[in-house]
């Protein structure tokens, strides 16, 4: 087995990118995003991407950079947020968007990673989300069938990792990362620190190494989208 750690983000992605592929990316807003892997994807020039992610970052950071470079053909997301490029490309028809309820999106990723091709949820019943989906009544309540998602590649961001691919996330920077890690045919992680195998607290390994194929140590800018404070 080739060892999992790689020297740079672009080396961590070497041989994995192709036009028309599906990429699942962890992160919520700009929190816990694999920002350096995203930069490497931008620099690779790969295009016609389907990107599965809660949102698309902001105009000039995170996945917004791939939107800006017109590398994304389709977004599978729950939220546009304050990303004007996202909204404008969607409204103009330049970008295809499949809106998913946030919990449905997270569960679809987990399901894909867990070998579950479909599950029923009441979320979205009676809305446009339910259109063309199978409806089924369980115990008197109506649910819709949602499909598991598997990505050609998942990119995630963790706080600490080890050479076995074990990952520990920090605070709310965890978000979609563990679910994306499960859903990738191949998963690449960027971590702030690579610790010796055995140094991670075993009770706090959120993503076991089996889900991670490669990882790279990076320095993150960790931009803050909405800095809110209280008076001292």
């Amino acid at each position: 087995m080739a060892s999992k750690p790689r020297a740079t983000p672009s080396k961590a992605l070497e041989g994995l990118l192709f036009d028309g592929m599906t990429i699942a990316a962890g992160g919520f807003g700009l929190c816990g995003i694999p920002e350096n892997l995203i930069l490497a994807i931008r620099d690779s020039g790969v295009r016609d991407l389907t990107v599965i992610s809660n949102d698309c970052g902001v105009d000039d950071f995170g996945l917004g950079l791939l939107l800006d470079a017109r590398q994304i053909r389709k977004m599978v997301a729950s939220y546009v947020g304050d990303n004007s490029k996202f909204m404008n490309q969607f409204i103009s028809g330049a970008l295809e968007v499949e809106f998913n309820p946030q919990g449905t999106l997270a569960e679809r990723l987990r399901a894909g990673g867990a070998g579950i091709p479909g599950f029923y949820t009441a979320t979205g019943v009676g809305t446009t989300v339910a259109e063309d989906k199978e409806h089924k009544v369980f115990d008197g309540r109506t649910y819709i069938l949602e499909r598991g998602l598997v990505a050609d590649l998942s990119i995630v961001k963790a706080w600490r990792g080890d050479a076995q691919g074990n990952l520990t996330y920090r605070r709310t920077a965890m978000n979609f990362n563990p679910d994306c890690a499960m859903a990738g045919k191949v998963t690449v992680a960027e971590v702030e620190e690579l610790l010796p195998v055995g140094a991670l607290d075993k009770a706090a390994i959120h993503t076991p190494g089996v889900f991670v194929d490669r990882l790279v140590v990076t320095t993150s800018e960790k931009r803050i989208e909405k800095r809110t404070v209280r008076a001292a």
Partner: protein
Amino acid sequence: MWTREQMAEQAAEELQDGMYVNLGIGIPTLVANYAGDRDITLQSENGMLGMGPFPFEEDVDADLINAGKQTISELARTSYFASSSSFAMIRGGHLDLSILGAMEVSETGDLANWMIPGKLVKGMGGAMDLVAGCKRIVIVMDHANKHGESKLLKRCSLPLTGQGVVDRVITNLGVFDVVLGGLRIDQLAPGVSLCAVRSLTEATLVE
């Protein structure tokens, strides 16, 4: 007429000791300020239970935000988890209450708050999951839109977030419960007459 703060204060009356609560973006976020000494636990759907207040400047942490992307703080009771676990909590009915904003609410409890076709697309975020999963849904919003038109409707005109999901609506004019046949006025804001509310409300009002 209530101000935004007064609407939040009104909504805070929903809070009871021991409750697990999810607060949406906007006025709902303000509700936490009026919890008083009630021991409630706030859930943030991006993966946190036990959300604290905004941090002091020196404690700001890019890895610690709420579902509105705002920097926040943690508490002694706080736990963190993945998005799928967060929504397992929500979808599975483990939260007692969610207080959300809205664009429109219908007299049958339908809710619209995620897009205006051709104009504005926010995305539903976690709202569809929250309204489908939480035990109780309370909406806090202005009674009318900026054109002075009622946001309490017979039927929503915008794409729905959920069908028959709203239990109560708190507006700047009063508190309204979704009951059989329409909206029942629970109370009116000071200085708001029944007559005024009737004229400003498209939805069927039930006494």
